[in-house]
């Protein structure tokens, strides 16, 4: 039993379930949970309309810690379960919490089909590049050669790139955030909510036990400004402590240039969230080698969501045929009387 609170009066504490949070101390999941609890009261959604659905894995404990409707389902299937729930009740604000194993390995198939169908729901994919709950095997996003419990001599298994997968699957909102970058993450959560289609938000999340420091270059105060490119729609893609470095398009390739004698600000590529080709180029940049790692919204487009089109079809049929009547249906066609 919960108190019923008017939507405009909701605060962070209304979204805390009271169950003990059992993630490891220092886990990046805490930061993400906290941001979600902060953002939800600001979305103007009645508390009872939030539905959080997860699969299996460390991140998938998430629904238990949120005082909303929640479903901790089975491994890899959160996206499928969320699809059914959203179709059944399009008024719900549905959030899928998944990880690189749950969402990309065992649940990869459902993920790509959710993206192409463009149901209006939000996917938060916690990417820590490792299997945590099963205690430290490599994941589909672990780098080649990863030393892990199941690959003591290094993995011979190439990773794939979640954002490219999402773009390739016709995702209509493709974004990346970092667990420790809290203000920016809140912004992304809001934008994911606002997007009327499937929002795919990859969140780089540090696993302190099995893959600590995987994203240190993006969280370390010394390194981050050199390593991170914060995307802003309509603005030149600049980064660096001095904000004097930028991405320049040379032919069909991106390169990092420094503003100075040879390059001016006009040589720096302007970020355009609506440009899919550019988004694909940006999605190449992942974990920061010679290039900075872009965070923010890489791509978005507006197209009708699955459940909206389905509802339109149902309404249209009812308009033409009248609301279904069992008696009429049974008696339709070749009948005879005895």
């Amino acid at each position: 039993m919960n108190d019923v609170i008017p939507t405009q009066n909701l605060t962070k504490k209304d979204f805390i379930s009271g169950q003990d949070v059992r993630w490891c101390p220092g886990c990046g999941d805490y930061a993400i949970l906290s941001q979600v609890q902060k953002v939800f009261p600001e979305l103007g959604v009645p508390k009872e309309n939030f539905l959080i659905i997860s699969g299996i894995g460390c991140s998938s404990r998430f629904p238990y810690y949120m005082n909303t409707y929640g479903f901790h389902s089975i491994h890899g299937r959160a996206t499928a379960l969320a699809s059914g729930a959203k179709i059944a009740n399009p008024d719900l604000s549905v959030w899928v919490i998944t990880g690189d194993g749950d969402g990309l390995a065992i649940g990869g198939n459902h993920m790509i089909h959710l993206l192409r169908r463009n149901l209006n729901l939000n996917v938060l994919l916690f990417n820590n590049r490792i299997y945590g709950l099963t205690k430290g095997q490599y994941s589909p996003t672990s780098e080649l050669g990863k030393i892990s419990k199941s690959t003591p001599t290094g993995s011979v298994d190439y990773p794939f790139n979640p954002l490219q997968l999402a773009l390739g699957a016709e995702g209509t909102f493709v974004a990346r955030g970092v667990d420790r970058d809290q203000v920016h993450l809140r912004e992304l959560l809001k934008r994911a909510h606002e997007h009327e289609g499937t929002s795919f938000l990859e969140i780089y999340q540090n696993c302190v036990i099995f893959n600590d420091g995987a994203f240190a270059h993006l969280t370390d105060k010394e390194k981050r400004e050199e390593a991170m490119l914060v995307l802003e729609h309509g603005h030149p893609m600049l980064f660096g402590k001095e904000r004097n470095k930028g991405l320049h398009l040379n032919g069909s390739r991106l390169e990092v240039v420094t503003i100075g004698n040879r390059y001016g600000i006009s040589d720096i590529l302007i970020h355009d969230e609506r440009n899919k080709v550019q988004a694909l180029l940006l999605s190449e940049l992942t974990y920061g080698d010679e290039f900075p790692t872009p965070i923010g919204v890489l791509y978005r487009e507006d197209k009708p969501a699955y459940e909206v089109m389905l509802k339109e079809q149902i309404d249209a049929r009812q308009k033409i045929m009248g609301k279904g009547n069992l008696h009429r249906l049974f008696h339709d066609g070749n009948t005879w009387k005895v």
Partner: protein
Amino acid sequence: MESDDKALQEQLEELDIVTIRFAGDSGDGMQLTGTEFTNNTALVGNDLATFPDYPSEIRAPAGSLAGVSSYQIQFSKYDIHTPGDDLDVLVAMNPAALKVHLKDLKDNGIVLINKANFNARNLKLADWESNPLEDDTLKGYRVVAEDMSKLVQNSVKDLNLPPKIVTRSTNMFALGFLYYLYDRTPDSTIRFLESKFAKRPEIIQANSRALKAGYYYGSTVRAVKTHYRVDRAKLAKGVYRNVMGNQAISFGLLAAAVKSGLDLYYGGYPITPASDILHYLAAYKHFGVKTFQAEDEIAGVVSTIGAAFAGDLAVTATSGPGMALKTEALGLAVSTELPIVVINVQRAGPSTGIPTKTEQSDLFQSIYGRNGETPIVVLAASTPGDCFNTAFEACKIALEHMIPVILLTDGYLGNGSEPWLLPDVDALPVIKTRKTTTVEDFEPFRHDPETLARPWAIPGTPGLEHRVGGLEKADGRGNVNYEPENHQKMTELRQKKVDIVAEKIPLAEAYGSNSGNLLVVGWGGTFGALRSAVERGRKKGQSVAHLHLRHLNPFPKNLGDVLNAFDQILVAELNMGQLQFILQGTYLVKTEGLHKVMGRPFSTGEITAKIDEMLEGK
């Protein structure tokens, strides 16, 4: 002319019961021909049962034995239960069809043959060493062998139609001939052609001419000396229509949605022979039905669980291999105590098996096939029309008890058809769901003492926010709980939730007598053959009764007593003895099994032979 008519009348003979099989190449349109004859038979008012039987390949090599497609119908002035055993008439459109089906034709039965296809190539493809039209093969049968293709061509000569359309109309010639043979008029099929091909007048013309050519061929050529009439059947009063099993399932689901006041959600992946359920429901959008063609079987059932959590009447359907993929999700539905209905239109297995052929080999899978202690209610429909009642009941149990329910049918039921007495919609029971909006004292896993159902608090209901999942949970509040005593308690509770359904279902009652020498026990789609054989036995004075189970988990409460009232028990099923094993294990009774796994239903004769053997030692 007058004398002709008189002669004709004199040769009209009344029959009680007739069995016909249309057989030809997959491309010969035998399913359509059979369906049209069936619709006509229904309008005449006979009782009927049908058995469409077609290859798994959409187009097996033309003329090959593997490519033969057939459609069988039995019709009668009496109440009948099966599509019949031996044939009165065989339509064989090519040598392969003759090869496959001739053995089922009765002595002196009529065989209608399209001579045009009996060329050297087709004879070889069908493994005929010599032309059966020219040797002794057809001795003892009444043979009507005609070049139908040529007669059809002649009938449309003046129209200059494309040859392909003309060739494809040949099946209508055979249909027309049979309409003559059984004293029908071809009007219903002409109406069908006119509505189906309203925008293709050339197809209507070709088919109508072919149909009439066959009809007049029968009456003028007198290829067969007699023609026949089967009188109307004396069925229960009411309005009837012909219905296929998969169609009746979709009607039953719709009715349950209306009677529970819920939207119907269907999530599924196409699979033979269950896909028609998706096809039917997708056309019922005016009932508010939401159909979701998922990316795979797992997403089909898991999306169904999501829709159930969100408050819809949520259903999925599949066949054996798809059921295997849904296994883990069924455990989730049991653990979260959500109402979903899962329909398995069984096919022959294992693995991909024989997709278009029937079997009953998923009973163990349905009752036991999951990890952990995961009991699920299992029902089975017995006839195409009964699919309606059973689908409705499956939804009612799921919603009133907050549990998943498995409904078993099979390919024979799904594609088979029979006259269906239209139910009175107002008389169908109202389904009372467990939906709640009461905030006070709400606990998501507090169970109703009578049904053990938990409350259904759907997202969007203020104040009832809660979490569910596949982890073990505490009784009442539903929080994750791994305590030993709690797990024992919850495991027992989930079993009791299934057991308690036995309080609501009718007691078992044998047909024929309550005790005696032999009880024939079956379940699902074998109903017709078993009932017919038992009726036949009782007419002969045998002490035999029939018990057909709809409720397979839990069983009716008195089942043990019913079984024990007979000296012998025969369990006949299209598997290797799955129900037999469960009955023996549950009630410690001695039984005999009759097991058939040939992808085909039982014939009445097979059951009769077994009954005779057990009663008379024959």
